[in-house]
């Protein structure tokens, strides 16, 4: 539907090599505002490396990333977060010793205004001073963000709200994934990258997660999704991109990609060809 507009995210010839291995090999991708594109492919196909390149955790050896028409290739992750790009991590990177509330509040960090005056040079010192003095504007902002966090956690029903003050290390695996997504939502992202949000979840938890992602999409959020559970991918995606050994081997609507012989070969033939590599930057 929104394909006619200029894409929100656009990758051109994105490439990343590790020694002799080309983890991401000339990937082109367009993601329209409000769209949901899924990236699938066998382990080691380069999906997570692609995410790292888009979010600034890794720098590409070639190609460009543009966001809303601006070249953002190689910008630092901090800058990209400030631009509204949020992600979750494949293996789950919550802040273990922080409470659920604090974890999600970190997600809202780029939205802090009152406590982080945009003054050059002495800005950090002002931030320290304001944090210690805590004038009413700072308190009000913190309070507002805490309310926001509770509203976000409420999306996960009774999964997280009762555990809001518990440290994240004490949560179940599935709940840590939820905290990660809540943290990403707290950034109020314009682009959300989800790296296997349902990894390690049972079928009912997966269904819950799928409903949440569908809801986010319906609200107009632009999403790039890495997922192994094909059922979920088929139902959610506007378009599916299949990667294998760093290359895009197929692209199109879910149903079409699913029947593509190259895709079947990549999934089934991979183990036999003996070239399977560890996912280099998992």
């Amino acid at each position: 539907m929104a394909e006619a507009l200029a894409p929100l995210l656009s990758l051109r010839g994105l490439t990343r090599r590790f020694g002799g291995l080309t983890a991401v090999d000339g990937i082109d991708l367009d993601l329209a505002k409000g769209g949901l594109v899924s990236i699938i492919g066998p382990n080691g196909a380069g999906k997570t490396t692609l995410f790292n390149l888009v979010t600034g955790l890794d720098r590409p050896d070639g190609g460009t990333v543009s966001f809303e028409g601006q070249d953002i290739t190689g910008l630092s992750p901090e800058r990209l977060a400030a631009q509204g790009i949020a992600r979750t991590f494949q293996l789950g990177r919550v802040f273990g010793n922080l409470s659920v509330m604090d974890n999600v509040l970190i997600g809202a960090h780029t939205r802090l205004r009152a406590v982080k005056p945009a003054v050059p040079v002495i800005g950090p010192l002002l931030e320290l001073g304001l944090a210690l003095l805590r004038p009413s504007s700072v308190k009000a902002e913190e309070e507002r963000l805490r309310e926001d966090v509770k509203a976000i956690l409420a999306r996960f029903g009774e999964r997280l709200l009762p555990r809001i003050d518990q440290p994240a290390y004490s949560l179940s695996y599935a709940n840590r994934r939820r905290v990660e997504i809540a943290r990403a939502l707290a950034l109020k992202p314009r682009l959300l990258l989800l790296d296997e949000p349902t990894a390690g979840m049972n079928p009912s938890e997966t269904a819950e997660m799928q409903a949440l992602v569908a809801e986010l999409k319906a609200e107009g959020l632009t999403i790039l999704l890495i997922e192994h559970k094909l059922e979920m991918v088929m139902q959610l995606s506007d378009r599916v991109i299949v990667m294998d050994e760093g290359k895009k081997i197929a692209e199109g609507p879910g149903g079409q990609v699913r029947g593509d012989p190259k895709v079947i070969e990549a999934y089934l033939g991979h183990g036999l060809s003996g070239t399977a590599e560890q996912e280099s930057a998992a």
Partner: protein
Amino acid sequence: MSSWLDYTINGLIVGNVYALVAVGLALIFGVSRLINFAQGSIYLVGAYIGWVAVVQLHTPLPLTIIVVAVVAAVVGLIIERFGLRPLQNSVRIAPLLATIGISFVLDQLVMLTFSPNPRALPSQLPDVRFQVGGGTIGPLDLLIAGVGISSALLLFVFLRYTKLGWAVRAASQDRDAAMQMGVDVNRVNQTVFGIAAALGGVSGLLVGMYYNQIDTAMSLQATLKGVVAEVVGGAGNVPGAVIGSMLLGLVESYGVAVFGTSYRNLFAFLLLVVVLVLRPNGLFASARQAPPEPLTGTFIAPSRPVRIPRWALAVAIVALAILPLLPVSFYILQTLINAWLLGMLALSLTLVAGTIGQVSLGHAALLAIGAYTSALLSLTLNVPVGLAIMAGGLMSAALGTILISPSFRLRGHYVSIATLAIGEIVSLVILNWESVTRGPIGISGIPPLSLFGYDLISPASVYWFAFAVMVVLALLQARLLGSHLGRCFRAIRDDDIAARAYGLSLNRYKSLAFIFGGFAAGVSGGIAAHLYSYINHETFNTQQSILALTVVILGGLGNVVGAILGAVALVGLPEVFRIAAEYRILIYGIVLLLLVRFRPQGLLGTI
């Protein structure tokens, strides 16, 4: 011209010695991703075993070398088996702290056995010099070069052509995969620690003979030099460590040639900082590394802090405040004054090491900056003492943060190395910058503490002053931890990659933590200067940094109340039990080891 050849030969010989230490460090790092801070202690043990063999037992040279290698290897095996293996599955900070603790325990044991006085370690070779080109070379130079080169060759053959050597290489490439393929990783670790320790011990022996003198201060120097050489060559890279060692030897030797002996270490540490900043993976690392794997588990032990009710804290503050009014002895007040000063340092370190996860080993340098600033301002510019102490805190905050900033992009062990080196640089600058710091003479006649024109002479007034300052700093720090900054600091500690992905700038927040922590440490140093009335470059030394670290671990990382409780415990308990001063460092080291092993979250828990 001829002297340049001499300096080159000297640089290469010293480089050979460093190589023996650095290769051991590289092997250990390769297999267990651990920088063994105890390597210098093994070197020290080697030197003293050598002394016993040569002077007491009159062993011939080949036998001396064998005895030293065997004893040192046994020490290495003991360290691996009892110090590190139990920590295999614990948080990443644990083995780092353990090797620091082991190093202090070993150094102190050697010092208690042999006394800290230097001893002569006679070379067992004839004292002749051969003319080589324009320079000269002696048999000991040749022996050192021979031992260095043959060890490197033996190691190469071992790693390349023996089954155990393959296992070592496999384990260093991928420990988990090696384990799954049936490699006995414990055996590999033992082998590596044994070899590393034997090389380290022999190196200590050779250096002792080279300078014909050994003393207990050798240990820290050797660790630092070995680590510098290893990091320059690329951590875990054995050939890199050899080349790094030669480079370090040459840089030092030429530096000494141009600027004089007292600058030797300065060049070593500047080389380290430059390499860490420009090429943190070493000179020979392949261009850009894959981004690090997500780390399972956190850097510090997860725990739930003990919650102390506010009224209890208020009662404690009041009780401690009225203490001087009660009939308590001068001795108790004096002890508590020391505890409050250490408490301020611990507050600083618990923020830096605990809250934001930068385990600093050079924290005493912040004391020194504060102390010198305050002392010099009050002495030379007649600044009132109260203001001078404040200025000392600010200077420590500013200068400390600037000095430490090259380490902001480093992680874990590297931060500790960098801070250790930066701490040494500060102490060397104080020693050498005579026009400002009065060099080795130190500063005497520092005016006593005073406030608004009133001298604080009585023990009670000094007590109140130190206690009040500490309480204010603690309250401020507690308030900081409750703000968004506390949250940001702890997030960076737990996972800096995820923190960056959510817009947290590491430079910004690490700077803020060091600014706040630097102020507290600087104030502590400033007060100490006016209390002691005399300071020099050794007043604030690495032992204090380690003591502060033990306090912080004891109290619970990041825990404000814990830092103060830990300071009282570690200053007070030795007094209560009347433990002689020379045993205290030993006890601190043992306490650190026991804590890491049995209660990593400390008394009050990590925050």
